[in-house]
């Protein structure tokens, strides 16, 4: 078995070198700072404003989304709500995490575009003032917050589900009011999780591309990722892109570094061995009001945008709610729009990357968890770095490194997806393998099975739900990935994400909506399968 693990480590290491390390080194060596006039570059007003906009987007999104995510998680998992409504609300609030953020930009454009958006038309019909202008940085922050709140809630869910309620009870018995208890006990206990969540959401917002490209760029407000994209698409300016990437990478690195620093603080919360469901609070007026606010955010965050995209996909004339046109679904996949080819390309590139991530992942995770191999542990950490890096930087590095070879093929897309999302498979498989008791393997050895036979006959069958989860969790974000795809696709290799983006931006928002609905249906179906296969352990 050690030989198989060593071979997997070598191959996985090679893929990491070819997909991440070598491309980054070559990219920054060939096109980066020392080849350009750095001083003049940083003196440009557009660069200043892109840096400031990126920081503002990251900071505002992290602050608001972490606050909302914390409040809603506390509300949903610390209070004793009727099961049905609480589960429905939690699902609505977390669903955006499954879908790419730019889908929500498409949804909100359909809802709140000046004059023609469904909500603005409804407001005009009622002689009410129109919604504030969606295009620009505030609109971008608004949509990013709605998506990122789901990410924050997923980060905080486990904390609140295991919260030791007796610590709050003790404060109440000391005479503290519920509000005082929340601010003096609950919030300080959650401080490490809050800091970690704020940093994670800020990294996510820093590398955001789709939402700022759709909502801020039309108002001539650029963030680092969209400025890089504009430079590449308009002028093929790799030198400027490299400098901007370096800035983006530096900011991301500093945030990640502070996460490591903050992570050193020991969490206050220690889960004891005494089993049992944490005591839950009884909701009163304040909690009920917050529940209503959460329901409003759920409607704004996932309900309305998804309905708007569905309506846009079904109407010939968006301004005429009676102009049903189901044939569009047929024409998008059979006509010249390239919808079918994009779907096939996305499935092929994502499927290959998800399978490779899972197959290598399971062997490397075995090496780390069961054999305690250092190379396996290092590989797992290294693939995690891939996830933390901005997709724009990964795509540019791959473009430069593979120039003239596999660019304009599905291979480069698969490699990019693997670099960015292999961590999803590894994060699922490593704890799953670690959770299988050593004695189950030892019992097989004592029955005469070799380590290889034990791996295939005992471990793999036990890991089936985790394997399915690893494939699906890696597949879901890849299927409609946009940030890297827009830079890497060529003629004949368009993907769902890139085609939806281009249709929405330049030609045909109706067809974009059809493809977005198709992608949403596929992703939600995969999530449902995942929940079923894993008996509720994975999925939203």
């Amino acid at each position, binding site marked *: 078995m050690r030989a198989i693990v060593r071979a997997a480590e070598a191959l996985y290491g090679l893929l990491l070198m070819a997909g991440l390390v070598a491309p980054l080194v070559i990219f920054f060596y060939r096109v980066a700072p020392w080849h350009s006039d750095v001083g003049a570059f940083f003196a440009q007003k557009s660069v200043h404003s892109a840096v400031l906009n990126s920081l503002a987007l990251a900071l505002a999104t992290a602050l608001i989304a972490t606050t909302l995510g914390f409040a809603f998680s506390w509300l949903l998992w610390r209070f004793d709500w009727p099961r049905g409504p609480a589960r429905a609300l939690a699902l609505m609030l977390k669903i955006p995490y499954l879908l790419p953020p730019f889908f929500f930009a498409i949804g909100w454009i359909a809802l709140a575009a000046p004059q023609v958006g469904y909500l603005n038309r409804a407001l005009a019909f009622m002689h009410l003032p129109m919604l504030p202008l969606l295009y620009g940085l505030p609109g971008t922050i608004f949509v990013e917050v709605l998506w990122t709140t789901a990410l924050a809630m997923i980060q905080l869910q486990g904390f609140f589900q295991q919260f030791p309620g007796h610590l709050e009870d003790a404060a109440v018995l000391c005479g503290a009011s519920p509000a005082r208890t929340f601010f003096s006990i609950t919030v300080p206990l959650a401080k490490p999780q809050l800091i970690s969540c704020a940093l994670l959401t800020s990294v996510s917002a820093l590398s955001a591309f789709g939402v700022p490209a759709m909502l801020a760029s039309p108002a001539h407000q650029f963030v680092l990722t969209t400025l890089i994209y504009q430079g590449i698409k308009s002028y093929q300016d790799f030198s400027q892109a490299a400098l901007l990437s370096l800035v983006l990478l530096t900011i991301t690195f500093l945030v990640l570094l502070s996460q490591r620093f903050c992570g050193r603080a020991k969490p206050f919360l220690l889960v004891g061995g005494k089993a049992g469901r944490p005591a839950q609070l009884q909701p009163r007026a304040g909690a009920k009001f917050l529940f209503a606010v959460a329901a409003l955010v759920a409607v704004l965050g996932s309900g309305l945008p998804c309905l708007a995209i569905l309506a846009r996909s079904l109407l010939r004339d968006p301004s005429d709610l009676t102009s049903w046109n189901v044939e569009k679904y047929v024409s998008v996949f059979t006509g010249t729009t390239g919808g079918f080819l994009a779907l096939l390309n996305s499935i092929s590139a994502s499927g290959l990357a998800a399978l490779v991530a899972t197959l290598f992942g399971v062997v490397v995770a075995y090496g780390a968890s069961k054999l305690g191999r250092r190379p396996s542990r290092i590989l797992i950490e290294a693939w995690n770095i891939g996830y933390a890096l901005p997709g724009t930087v990964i795509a540019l590095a791959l473009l430069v490194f593979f120039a003239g070879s596999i660019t304009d093929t599905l291979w480069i897309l698969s490699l990019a997806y693997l670099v960015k999302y292999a961590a999803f498979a590894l994060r699922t498989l490593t704890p799953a393998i670690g959770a299988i008791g050593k*004695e*189950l393997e030892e*019992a097989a*050895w004592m029955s005469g*099975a070799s380590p290889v036979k034990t791996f295939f006959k005992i471990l793999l*069958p*036990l890991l089936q739900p985790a394997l399915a989860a690893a494939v699906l969790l890696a597949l879901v974000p890849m299927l409609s990935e946009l940030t890297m795809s827009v830079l890497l696709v060529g003629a004949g290799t368009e993907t769902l994400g890139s085609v939806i983006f281009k249709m929405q931006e330049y030609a045909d928002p109706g067809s974009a909506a059809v493809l977005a609905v198709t992608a949403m249906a596929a992703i939600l179906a995969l999530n449902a399968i995942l929940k079923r296969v894993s008996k509720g352990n994975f999925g939203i």
Partner: protein
Amino acid sequence: MNVKIDSLYKSFGNNHVVDNVSFAINDGELVTLLGPSGCGKTTVLRVLAGLEQPTSGTVRVGEKVFNDATHATPPHQRGIGMVFQSYALWPHRTVFENVSFPLEIRKLAASERASKIAQALKLVDLGELGHRYPHELSGGQQQRVALARAIAQQPTVLLLDEPLSNLDAKLREQMRGDLKALQQSLKLTMLYVTHDRLEALELSHRMAIMDHGKLVQMGTPDEIRENPVNDFVRHFIS
């Protein structure tokens, strides 16, 4: 098959958990390794199974040398059966499939396999429960499945690592009787690890008492009861 362990040492870093242990088990004999928690008895058992590598020393079963200075036979090639403290039943396999596994590995014909499984399940009184999964069984039944799985492969030596420690007092007493009867009917060579002196006194042909990694005394229950070599043995056995 007789077992011989010579000058066995096992260290984890600076922690010497087994310190120059030597003893032998005769063919068809049941020996218990008795001692307090952390005295090294489970480590000796795991070294004999091949699940731990000794720092030095020799392990022989019959004519075969499993461990010496030059080589170590991997556990799956030793032909030794083992019952784990946690039973280690595979949750994705039924009782029948759990017991069948060692026979599948040995590539026995389906008919021969079925008859051996039926025989093993009958021996542990579980004939009717072959279709059930481990989580559908009580603790005592799970323990019997683990025993059936270990004896189905007709091991040269059967190792038992505190197999009754997870059962309640009444069931433990019943299982002690069943184990003794099983050993006598199959004439199996058995090494039984326990910290329960009653279990050791009732089951053993001979007992080996360990303390701080050393083998302190070995003999029949009567010999040890009547002539304990030191205060530790006297207190531990009384």
